[in-house]
């Protein structure tokens, strides 16, 4: 297999899968008949530890699971919840698909983009605290508008509730 060319002059890379995280991964690997089966879980672990998944992280995951970096990258770019670049301290996902759209989801988006200072969708606020994006159906259509702030799933958000939410997460 052609060797991985690590560009010269980069700082030493600190692996994700050491110690406890490595032990976690090893437990997960046992659940699947192939190491590759643990790829999505492994990527979640990287994102938990580092906040996002870099190309170098992908190489590490590839080595640990016996697949190629190109394969890992193909997977990372397919699934929209994996961040391919750093995001704000708080990552906000707002559903705007039709059922929520009918219930004012776009107003919630506007309120969030403004209140967090992010300014526009996908951008990180100048203070580095917030990134807000629109996402597709979050599976809580009867509790419009649902949003995720990091791992917190918050139901029934309306524009008037936004300032309080943003303050709470600060």
């Amino acid at each position, binding site marked *: 297999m*052609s060797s991985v060319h690590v560009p010269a002059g980069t700082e030493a890379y600190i692996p994700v899968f050491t110690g406890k995280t490595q032990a976690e991964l090893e437990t997960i690997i046992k659940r699947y008949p192939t190491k590759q089966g643990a790829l999505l879980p492994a990527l979640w672990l990287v994102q938990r530890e580092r906040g996002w998944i870099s190309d170098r992280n992908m190489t590490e995951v590839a080595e640990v699971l016996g697949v*190629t*970096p190109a394969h890992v990258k*193909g997977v990372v770019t397919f699934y*929209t919840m994996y961040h391919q670049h750093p995001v704000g301290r708080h990552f906000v996902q707002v559903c705007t698909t039709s059922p929520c759209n009918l219930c004012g989801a776009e107003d919630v988006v506007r309120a969030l983009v403004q209140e967090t200072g992010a300014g526009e969708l996908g951008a990180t606020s100048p203070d580095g605290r917030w990134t807000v994006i629109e996402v597709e159906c979050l599976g809580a259509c009867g509790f419009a508008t649902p949003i995720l702030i990091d791992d917190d799933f918050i139901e029934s958000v309306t524009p008037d509730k936004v300032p309080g939410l943003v303050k709470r997460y600060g």
Partner: protein
Amino acid sequence: MADGLITLTIDDTPVSVPPGTLLIEAAKQVGVLVPHYCYHPGLPVAGVCRMCLVHVEKQPKLAIACATQAADGMVVHTQAPEAKTARQSVLEFLLINHPLDCPICDQAGECELQDFVFQEGRAGTRYGEYAKRFNPVEDFGPDVLYVPNRCILCTRCVRFMDDVAQEPVLNVSERGDRAFIGVHPEGRLDHAWAGNVVDLCPVGSLLSKDFLHKARAWELDKTASVCTGCSQGCNVTLDLRDSTVVRVRPRPNLDVNRYFICDHGRANYRWMNRADRIEAPLVRDGGTLRAADWDEALARVRALLSGASGKAVTIASPRASTEALYLARRMLSRFDWTGGFQLVMGEVAPLAGVPNLALRAERAPNGTGAELLGYSPDVGSVLQAAQGAAVVVLLDEAEVPVQTAGALLYAGTVLPEHARHAEVVLPLANMAEEDGTFVNRDGRVQRYFQAKPAPGMARPAWWALGELVAELDGASQPESAESVFEALAEAVDGFAGLSYGALGLNGRKVRAGAGVPA
């Protein structure tokens, strides 16, 4: 069914095939080419392009011919109106983002998108109003460029690297109409067989840097040939523009290289265009070589041979044709003969997904042919014998420095330094300028065909040496490489029963256990 075959009807024509045959292959047998992109007989089936939709009676939906197995009694209509409409819509969908690059795209003239749009597509687009998706060109590696805008996401390249090269360095990145073929930044497309993705790409998305903007497809003359890069003997097609070889592509041979060649062989054609050729026969006159005509040169050779006796040595290039090797020995039949050749060795690079296919260590196409004809790979000892030989014939071997007390005859394409003390120099055609055969490492004898004219007065070895040998035998001058091969087949044990007709375009193996002729 008789002999295990099943019978189905395709476009009102019955065809019998083994059970499990894909419809797209069964259709080929009755001369029907079902339009397709992602399907390729050398790759695992993907079924993603949706281009090969055909109507199968009794099935509620159109079926993709590349993934549907023929069944007994099946009735297939490739030209049914709903199938044609569906295929036309696939073409329309492909063209909404595909740029109108034909005037500047290398693939024009050999582009499967052009071909099927011409055949079945709409005359105009209904997508005139929006910007097309744009991504910049990417350099994937040593020879491959990727033009994302032209990509139709057939994934042939990804499947080739995954399953045939077994080095998954290409992926599909992103999703939906944002998708493109990607590499990981820390990986390059430098696998020894990566260049095949360029051939496999149906459109001008994956391009060879070597061939970029060199020629238009319709300017090319195509000739069947055999790769000279190593002893694997991959079948190739030489593409020439105005008598210059500009590209080498694989030619299918299911027993040797299937549909692929390695990058080393792909790049191994520039020597065919060398300009520093010997263009006239040369004879020694006093202390120097001067130009002569063929009659004079051959007369000088005859005189030399008849005036000598004892040991004679042929040192041949393992790139010489079997016919040439045969003649370069036969012409010395009156002598105590030794023959030798030098093999340059290199790294082996297998194509993991195909059995018995690799860039071989022996970097010459006809080492096996030479051995079957009695030449020894131990060139060292043959050089020793040459020192005391009465006559030494050097056959197009430019790298082996020969020293002899006897007469040196050089027949070749270029004139190396050490051949300047030859008595006679005969200008030969190179492999692209003649018909001939090579024997690959598995003993397969394969034909190659003349692709361009030889320069100046250069002639194929079968002609130049053939005349000399004919005289010895009291026979008539051979009229073609074929007649030399016929004589060879009669005289050399392993080649019994072979002929150019029998070899066809994909070759035949020598008899097992073939020995060396007397």
